[in-house]
């Protein structure tokens, strides 16, 4: 597999997994339907991410999953050159972005910045989300399909 493949990084990295308590499940199933869902407190309207059982502002347990437009602003970034696993050694370097969502209380998501990994990255630049679908692994029944949210210049 090369960079020309349909996913930014090869399927050699750990896959997002359920903790068995269902907390993150609406987020991941939303991405599979190409919908970005962020938690919001029904009581005080505070945006909450990463997912949590309780609102940190008012301590209500009544949180709603709200659809949010997948656009944002680059808050920070890094370009990774050293592979943590030999399985991605041919895919270096790659870009990671920390993306702030002004339309959702400036919560932050982590994703890859698509395109030339050598490009200059500008903090504050506007980006839009791209849903990146990873199919289930044919040779591994335990590896189910999942979707990542990647980012490209708006």
């Amino acid at each position, binding site marked *: 597999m090369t960079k020309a493949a349909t996913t930014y*990084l090869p399927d050699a*990295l*750990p*896959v*997002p*997994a*359920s*903790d*068995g308590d269902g907390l*993150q499940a609406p987020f*991941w199933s939303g991405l599979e339907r190409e919908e970005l869902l962020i938690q919001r407190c029904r009581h005080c309207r505070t945006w909450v*991410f*990463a*997912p*949590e059982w309780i609102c*940190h502002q008012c301590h209500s347990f009544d949180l709603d999953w709200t659809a949010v437009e997948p656009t944002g602003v680059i*808050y*920070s*970034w*890094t*370009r*990774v*050159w*050293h592979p*943590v*696993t030999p399985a*991605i050694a041919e895919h270096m*370097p*790659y870009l*990671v972005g*920390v993306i702030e969502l002004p339309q959702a209380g400036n*919560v*932050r*998501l*982590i*994703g*890859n910045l698509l395109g030339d990994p050598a490009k200059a990255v500008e*903090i504050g630049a506007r980006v839009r989300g791209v849903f990146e679908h990873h199919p289930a692994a044919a040779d591994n029944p*335990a*590896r189910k399909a*999942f979707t*990542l949210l990647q980012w490209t210049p708006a």
Partner: protein
Amino acid sequence: MTEPGIRGKTAIIGVGQSPYYKRGKSPDPAFVLTLRAILNACADAGIDPRAIDGFASFSMDRNDPLRMSAALGLRELRFNSMVWGGGGGGGSAAIAGAAAAVHGGLAETVVVFRGLAQGAMRFGGAPPAQYLGGNFAFMAAYGVISPAQQYAAKVIRFMHDHGVRQAALRAIALTSYAHAQNNPNAVMYGRPLDAETYDASRWIAEPFHLYDCCLESDGAAAVIITSAERARHLTERPAYILGAAQGAGYRTDAGSFNGPDFASSHFASLAPRLYAMAGVTPKDVDVVQSYENFTGGVLMSLVEHGFFTAEEANDFLTPDNLNAMGGKLPLNTSGGNIAEAYIHGMSLIVEAARQIRGQSPNQVRDAKVSMVTSGPMAAPVSNCILGAEETL
């Protein structure tokens, strides 16, 4: 009002270490390295190891106090404590817990230690997992797994906000290597680093070059803590514990990088508490051991402890200013995590005590106030200040 906290109530009376090795090169398992460090610390303190009655550690150390207690034939075990958190952020917190236990009468002679052999369990690599839940679910599939990958974006944003240049990070790396050249126990002894080599070194994750990253090491380090009263009878130069703090700020570790103080070492809320307890100001500090998981963490730690502002970092962070021989702020004087060894910062605590006890390979003249910052960016973080008799 009674005197707050633990200021001057306890002291480090002995320090010890095992030989330090590159990751995977120790001929001995971690347990043996740890026992050697503890026995060396007892010898330095002049106490019988059987007098130890407590253990404190951090970072999920795997050297079980009950096994050590049996192996060393301790008469009685009265106190065990492990600080939460997987990185080195718990080092000074373990000191604080031990000091509080001794001051509170829970135990009399507590060892604070950390021992690891990374051949058996590596910290710098990827977790050997196919699936990751919790906060890793939001990072791992995007290639954010190792500590360098997790912390790089904090430093990029801090440098962006304050105009800090790469040369400031380089000065921190060069300082550790320079100090290691006078320390025969340092892994990088006899292997000096110059600016050109740093500049030409490969990136790990921007803004971290290879030399901005800590080593991966096998080794162990330990200190012995007892009451100030006993310390005076046992050793000529106790390193008194003047203060210690641990913790994190408001929602510091909110998942998926949502902490409001993301671009930070997370010491902002701790530093004032530490100085207040210790009764000193940044100007009083003679020497600092500031944990380098990555040089960028040191940059932010020193700013958040008030040694200079972020805007002054480019001017302040030079090899001359950080050198033990006459620098404004002697830093990481045994070579630190970058050039001595990476014992999750326990080696830095040993060196901080050596500076007060006059045992450092790069002894700062008349060092009386000696600071440690543990595990920047890896909340909960911690810090402590040691002082000579004259500071009490």
